[in-house]
């Protein structure tokens, strides 16, 4: 099973070394194409004018924020069920990237909302759910930071991630329900744009570019995390051996 072949961190690092330049190149190309298409190919919206161009970063960022959480949930399963040694590395490395994409989708959404709705923020069901997602990302990052032992922290975070994954649909549903109860009449709802190929293609290219960006960053962050754990192990060893050069001579019973 190919998945298990890369359980060895050293082999994984070698794979990253090979794959990363190609992935980065593809990512840059995809972004170049995506930007060109979203500014020069895509038409302006008859209702929203040029502001519709915000959609080409807003929507992919929102997709990525959810995809990143799915990846973290799968990684958490990997930590708890399959005990794959790289699973919690993957989950930990994904969290800040996911938080950043969520933040981007919130910021672009609110900058889009100001000219369209006349306010930066409404407690719309979709926006609110994304805000809850951001809080979950930040909470997970904090959980990882407060624990010194990466293995313990990884397990705790995996449990929280999975509970969150089960909970997110419930949150989405209840926020929808809460919102339809309260929806103030003054706020104009945005109609989903009729998907015309001229809009769809730039959107898809941008989505691919964002996905590639995610994987580039994710691999780099995973590599850093593996190095960080290596440093930690070596430091622990450096502390226990009184004189690293002649460690066998002075080996003491630890604690």
């Amino acid at each position: 099973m190919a998945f298990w072949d890369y359980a060895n961190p050293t082999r994984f690092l070698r794979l990253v070394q090979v794959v990363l330049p190609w992935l980065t190149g593809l990512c840059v190309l995809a972004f170049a194409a995506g930007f060109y298409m979203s500014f020069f190919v895509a038409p302006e919206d008859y209702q929203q004018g040029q502001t519709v161009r915000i959609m080409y970063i807003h929507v992919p960022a929102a997709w990525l924020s959810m995809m990143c959480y799915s990846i973290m949930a799968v990684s958490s399963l990997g930590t708890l069920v399959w005990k794959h040694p790289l699973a919690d590395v993957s989950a930990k490395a994904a969290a800040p990237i996911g938080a950043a994409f969520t933040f981007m989708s919130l910021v672009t959404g609110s900058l889009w909302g100001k000219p369209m709705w006349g306010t930066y923020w409404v407690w719309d069901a979709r926006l609110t759910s994304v805000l809850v997602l951001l809080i979950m990302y930040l909470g997970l990052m904090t959980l990882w930071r407060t624990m010194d032992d990466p293995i313990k922290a990884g397990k705790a975070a995996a449990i929280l991630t999975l509970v969150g994954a089960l909970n997110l649909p419930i949150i989405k549903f209840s926020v929808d329900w809460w919102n339809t109860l309260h929806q103030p009449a003054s706020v104009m709802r945005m109609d989903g744009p009729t998907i015309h190929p001229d809009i769809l293609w730039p959107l898809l290219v941008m989505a691919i570019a964002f996905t590639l960006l995610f994987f580039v960053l994710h691999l780099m962050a995973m590599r850093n995390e593996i190095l960080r754990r290596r440093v930690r192990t070596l430091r622990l060893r450096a502390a226990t051996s009184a004189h690293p050069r002649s460690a066998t001579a002075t080996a003491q019973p630890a604690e």
Partner: protein
Amino acid sequence: MDLGPHSGFIIASYGLCLVTVLGLIAWVRIDKAIQEKALRELAEQGVSRRRPDAGGR
């Protein structure tokens, strides 16, 4: 090209996204430099990774 009356919002959202992505890239690069520096220092101290019998545990 003309971005219409709301050009400020469009530029701001693209700009903020760019800043966020650059921030992520900077974080990854700086983090890598820190870890590699620590590994180099440990190597100079003579702590080796391939000697499982050296540790107390």
